[in-house]
Structures are given as C-alpha cells and as structure tokens.
C-alpha cells in the first residue's frame, strides 16, 4: 500500500444540540479504496463535509501529503485536490453536460465553447458515459447525471476522491462501470473514500473500512479481517439478530382456497410506457416487482395507484370492478402508495412532521372536515411512538429529519389511512441498516394481520426475505413470476437476463 495521502486527527464538530463528531481519526493511503461506514447520523456525512470545507471543524487537524492544511470552503478543497460526488446530484440540471463538467473551473472569463465541448466529449467517451456534451443535463437519466458528476470530479486531477453514496440510484451494470472506473483510478494512485449503505459493494471493491458510530470512531479494519456480520454489529453497536430469520418470525397468512384477491388488474398500461400487464394480490400476501433500474417496476405500481394516467386496463378491488384514474380514487378504495423518490414525491419539506403524517388521511376525510390540532397531535404522537420516529417534536419540519426518519413519517402517513393494500416503492433506499430491518419486520407483521403489500427494493436479498411472490420485469415487460423454491438469487438473475421467458 502506498504512503498516507490524507490524515485527519482528532476531528471535533459540534452542532447546536448534537456532538456530531468526537475526536475522530481517519487515514487514507494512496491507491486505496476506503469505505466509511456507519448508520445514519453516525457522522459520516459530517466528516466528509468537514473534509470538503462545507463545515469548518471545531477541533483537530487535517494533513494532506504531510502538510497541515486548513480547508475553509469547497473551493479550497477542490484546489487541494479533494473532489467529491454527493449522494444527491449537485449539478445544474438546466445547463448542458459539458457546462456542468467545467462550471466554476475556468480561470479566464472568456470561454471557448468548442474546446469545452470537445474536452467534455473526450472524458465522457473514456468513461463510456452515454451522454452528449451539448445535451441538457436534465434530459439525462438520474444514473447518467450521477456519472457526469463523477466525470467532473475525476477530471479535476484529484488526489482524494470522495464518493458519498454514488450508487444509490445506479443499476447493477452502471455500478459495475463505476467500480471499474474506481479501480482504474486506484491504479493511478488516487485515494478513494467510498460511503455507501450497500454492504455487498463494500466487500466487492474496498480495501479498508473505517466504522463510525454516534460521532465516534469505532475502528479501522482491513477488509479481510472484518466479516459482514461483525461489520454490521460494529455499526449498530450490538449483536445483530439474524436478519435471515425475520421471515419465519411471523407466520405467513394462510391463503384460503377460492378467496377473492384484494386487488387485480388486467391488461394495465400507463403513459409511462409500461406494456400491458396482469396483476393480482391476495389478502395477507407480500409480493414484489423486481428487475433492473428502469425496467418498469415503479411504473407498474404507479399505474396501479393511478399516479400516471392509465392507457388501458381494468382493475378490481375485493372482486368489484373499480375505476382508478387518479391517486384520490385509489386512496378511497383503500390503496396506499409510498413513492420511490422520497424527496420529490414523498415529503412536504417545510411542513411539520404532524402535518406530513395527517396529510393523506385529511385529504381522504375531505376539505370540510379538518382534524383539530388535538386530533392531529394524537395521530402524530401515536405513530411517532409506534414507528420510533426520531424527531424533536411533532412540530419539527420534516426536512430537518434524517432520511430514514423521513421515510418512517411517510410510512406513518399511509398507515394512518388504514389501507387494505399497501404499495411500498423502495422504502429502504438510502436509510440505515437498523431502520431497514425495522421496516422489513413491519411489512411482515402487517401482512400477517391481513394487509396485502407490494414491496419493491433494489436489494434482491431484501425482497427475498420479505416477498412470497416476485414479478420479474425487463424492459418494461413482465417477464416472469417466481414463487416457492424459485425464490433465489440465481433464478431471479436468470429470469431478468431472459432464459426461459424468451417466448413472451
């Protein structure tokens, strides 16, 4: 391993009410990929932001190539060769790809558009990113936008590259591409700090792991010395109850013969270009849509909920034909939908936790029957307790909560409407391991009480743990349905890749 390129010693950071970092050390060597792990709120993001100059540290020192440096702004960090790609896209969607790659970096006021586009095109080509330099960034998929952000960071001749959850919106092939890129950079001697929630990815690509918990350093480990179970228990600070066992904890709801399905759809398609598909779900069943990103998983459930305009298809609820053309219709029929993109479609940022929790139920009850403050507080407090939502009070704006807790609030919103059929689209994306397990357990508990649930997740093992039937999608077609013994990783992969269902 190369020499130490970055040393952070005794970093301390206090926010009002929170001691976010306490005496944290971190060391990065040349040409290594170093995973920074911890639950939400462990201090990973704060550490990264101290390093990149977004926050100023209260105590401690940062040593870059044996020189103590002071980083006061992101610009400083960039000039020192520290580049960052954040979890959320931080580019300007209304500018072109090339502009995004070079913005804020040219030192002269005159801009050579032609050269800029050529340079950008070269880099995009090298990294095999499917985007044109002159294309407007907003017209690219989220995954491509993320890769443009990486391209921007990589191009800046960096010594330290920070990837803060870059993979959460990428599909597996794109992740592979990114990993290849990371290995190339590693070979060139770049030190990479990799922050992610995906354990698989850590073990696939990283050399070392530093674990944080509650703002404190737990330790630094070689990857081979730290098996997964131990990593998780170090992150949580407790022995993990074996996650693979949760399914058996709740007896599966017994399906009675000839029972009417809770919900069926036939020949359903929507404006978002999903090809007509049939679907049904029974009482107490947990099923799921799986497939690569962009395969049409979300579009299917959005069509069911009426979030996108339906082009064809018939739906029944409890055996009776129903017309669902917009979300309110679905809600009135007892269907709830937790959307994929929490920020855009889920939270109402400036409103309080309380208002966010009662919103859907309030809409269902009607504009002329507002809940009194007391009622709203009662609902909010009940679900804050039930789902263990960590918030200062029911009046806190939801945007100041951590991602996992925001997601719980949205979940509470829909549980409050007492649905018969609950659709969860990526409920565990970008949230910590502990909350993930909580949500999986809750799903199985609700199902055992008779609720029908459709569960979508990018993590296949999570779906295998919770679902008893998987609908496999490829290129916006349903290409297969797996139950029983077929529910395993290999079978899913082969169905996605398209073995037996080619005739369709």
């Amino acid at each position, binding site marked *: 391993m190369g020499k130490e390129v970055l040393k952070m010693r005794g970093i301390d950071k206090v926010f009002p009410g929170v001691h976010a970092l306490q005496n944290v050390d971190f060391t990065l060597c040349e040409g290594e990929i170093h995973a920074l792990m911890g639950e939400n709120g462990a201090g990973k993001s704060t550490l990264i932001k101290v390093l990149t100059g977004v926050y100023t540290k209260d105590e401690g020192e940062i040593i870059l190539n044996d020189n103590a440096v002071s980083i006061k702004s992101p610009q400083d960090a960039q000039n020192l060769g520290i580049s960052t790609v954040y979890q959320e896209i931080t580019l300007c969607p209304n500018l072109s790809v090339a502009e995004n790659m070079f913005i804020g970096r040219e030192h002269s006021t005159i801009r050579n558009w032609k050269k800029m586009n050529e340079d950008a095109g070269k880099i995009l080509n090298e990294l095999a990113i499917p985007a044109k330099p002159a294309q407007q960034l907003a017209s690219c998929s989220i995954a491509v936008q993320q890769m443009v952000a990486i391209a921007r960071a990589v191009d800046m001749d960096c010594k330290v590259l920070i990837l803060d959850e870059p993979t959460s919106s990428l599909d597996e092939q794109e992740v592979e591409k990114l990993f290849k890129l990371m290995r190339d950079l590693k070979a060139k001697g770049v030190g990479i700090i990799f922050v992610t929630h995906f354990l698989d990815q850590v073990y696939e690509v990283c050399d070392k792991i530093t674990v944080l918990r509650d703002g404190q350093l737990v330790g630094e480990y070689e990857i081979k010395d730290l098996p997964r179970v131990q990593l998780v228990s170090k992150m949580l600070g407790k022995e993990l109850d074996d996650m693979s066992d949760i399914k058996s904890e709740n007896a599966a709801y017994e399906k009675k013969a000839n029972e009417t399905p809770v919900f069926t759809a036939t020949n359903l398609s929507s404006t978002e270009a999903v090809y007509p598909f049939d679907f049904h779900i029974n009482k107490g069943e947990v099923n799921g849509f799986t497939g690569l990103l962009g395969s049409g998983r979300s579009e299917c459930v959005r069509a069911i*909920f009426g*979030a996108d305009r339906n082009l064809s298809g018939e739906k029944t609820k409890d055996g009776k034909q129903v017309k669902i053309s*917009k*979300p*309110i219709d679905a*809600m009135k029929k007892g269907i709830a*939908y937790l*959307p994929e993109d929490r920020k*855009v*479609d*889920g*939270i*109402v*940022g*400036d*409103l309080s936790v309380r*208002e966010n929790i009662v*919103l*859907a139920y*309030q*809409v*269902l009850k009607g*504009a*002329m029957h*507002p809940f009194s403050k007391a009622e709203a507080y009662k609902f909010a407090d009940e679900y804050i307790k039930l789902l263990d939502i960590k918030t200062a009070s029911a009046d806190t704006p939801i945007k100041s909560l951590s991602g996992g807790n925001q997601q719980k609030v949205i979940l509470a*919103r829909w549980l409050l409407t007492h649905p018969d059929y609950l659709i969860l689209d990526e409920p565990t994306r970008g949230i910590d391991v502990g909350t993930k397990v909580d949500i999986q357990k809750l799903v199985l508990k609700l199902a055992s009480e008779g609720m029908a649930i459709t569960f979508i997740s990018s993590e296949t093992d999570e779906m295998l743990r919770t679902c008893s039937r998987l609908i496999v999608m490829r290129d916006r077609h349903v290409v297969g349905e797996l139950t029983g013994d077929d529910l395993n990783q290999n079978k899913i992969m082969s169905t996605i890749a398209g073995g037996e269902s080619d005739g369709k």
Partner: protein
Amino acid sequence: MANNKKSGSGIFGKLIHSQIIIPLAALLLLIIFNLICDPSFFVITPKTNSAGNPVLSGYLITILDYGSELAILAIGMTLVTAASGGQDISVGATIAICGSALLRVLCGANSRPETIQAPIIVGFLVACVVGMICGAFNGILVAYFKIQPMVATLILFTAGRSIAAWINNNELPIVPDPTFAYFGGYIPGIPVPAPVFIAALCMIVIFLVLKFTTLGLYTQAVGINPSSSRLNGLNPELVKFISFVILGLCVAVAALIKTSRLSTINYSVIAKDIEMDAILAVALGGNPLSGGKFNMWASIIGAYVIQFLTTTLYKMKVSSDALSAYKAIVVIVLVVFSAPTVREWISAQFKKLSAKKEVA
C-alpha cells in the same frame, strides 16, 4: 424579579423566532418614530363630519380606514403566493373592472341617473362574480396552462383598465344614492369608518375558513411540493385555481370600498399601484414569495404597516410625488431587517448581550 425576567425572555425568544415579529417590529418602529416626532399623531378626537354625524378623527383612524382595502387584498394575495409561488399583479386593474361593473349595474346605461337602477346588493354581487371571473381567468392560465403567475396576470394588468372603461362606454357614472357612500365612509350614528368593519368581517371570514376547512394545509402542501401533494390525493391545479378565485373575491370587496369612497370611478387612477403594496404586505409579513408556508395574520399586519408608513409620510408633509421614494427607503430597511440572515445575526447579538448581563 429574576424569575419574571426569565419568563419574559422566554416569550421574547419565542417571539423573535416567530414570523409575526417582522411586521410587528416594523409597526413598533413606526409608532416609536411618531411618538418622538409628534405625539399628537395618536390623538383621536370626536368631530362632526360634513353630513352632521359625530365621527372619530385622527391619524390612527385614517390608517385603519385607508388600510382596509390593502388588508383585504393581502388576504387573497397571501393565498395566491402560497399556492402558486407567484403573485397576481392585476389586482389594481381588476378593481377597476369590478368597480366599473358595480357602477354599471347601479347606474344603468345612463351615467347620471336620478335614482339607482338596482339594489346595491345586486350590484355588489355582480362585482363579486366579475371579480371571481377575473380570478378564474388568471387561475386557469397559472394552474392549467402553467404560465408564470406574473406573466399570466400581466394580461389583465395591461388590459384591465381599458376593459373597465369599456364597460361604461368610457363615461364616469355617479351614483346618486347617498347610502352607497356608506361603504367607503361612515354609517350614520357609528363614529368608526365603515371600511374598518368590512375589513374586520373579511378577516373573520378568512379566519373561519382557515379553521373549518383544510384550505391552509392544502395551499401550503401544494405550494411546497405539488408532486407529493398529488400523490396524496390532492389536485394541485384546483387548489391554485381556487386561491386565485378567492383573491378575485377580495378584489371585488376592495372595489366596493374604493368606488364607494367617491361614489364614482376614475379608470386610470383607481387603486393604482395597489398590487405592489399588496405584494409588499405579504413580503413584510415574512411570507416567502416563492410560496409554501404562510401566516395570514402577518400579511394583514404587514398591510397596515404599509398604510401606517404612507400616512406618516403624508403627515410629515412629504409631497405625493416624492412619497414613493421615501417609501422605498423605508421598505428597503424593513426588508433587509426581516431577511433570515440578518434576523439570525440580531438574535445572536441578543444572546451575547443577555449572556453578558447574566455574568455581570
């Protein structure tokens, strides 16, 4: 004593973080300024007006009286701002349209009738319908055609006063019935100007609407995140549309007061530039002009602050041509002080001060 002080600072601390502090502080500032310059500003004296009725007179009464239209418009403007994240700049012109329609109904085709041609209530209801149609027009452009509010309302802003003139064939009808003048003046026997009561009524109505319907929650949700609101079963377009219609109704009420004050109308001058004052009231109330959360009472107080300022300047014998310039200076100061960064800095200074005091 020490206890008292502590609880006091607690309330003060709460207040400084609440939104309503901004217009209240501005109001306080103006009051102090007037107290120092000339305490007689606050004197209210009973007098007899030209019609022989006993009335109260004084600058405070003037402020309450002439602030009425602005306060009523601020109600609607707050809702439009919250729901659509933009402002309606056509309110002055639509006041002209509503007022013109009102006079057309009351005076008929003849602009100098001997008696009114229809009951005042009918005229007012027609004005309300016209106001709501104008609001609906703006609302459709903004909500369904997704045109930016300022651009959409620019149409009526430009065309409104011509439409108003056209309604009465460009004549200036005069309402002969003295009861019509009550709405903008005094009701015999009551010494407080009638517009004050009309404004109070509007406030009570909006208070009840906000309390007994979910309008407040829906407008804020739609203003903050329309996409999420839709998935929660709301119809964001409808909510935006309704906010414009409500503003249209407010405009009609303001038009009633404005035309009643003169018993006639001047198409090019009536309610001139009032849209900017209405928007300013919303801003002074600390409401983000980009939409989302709102505080109705802060906006209403903001409206009276503007009127207070105008009246103060008049009293200082500032000529009406120079008025806007002085107003602009004061507005700049107020807006800078209400900016979040400045407020944070101020509250930090207060903390330091109180910490020092405790040490001492």
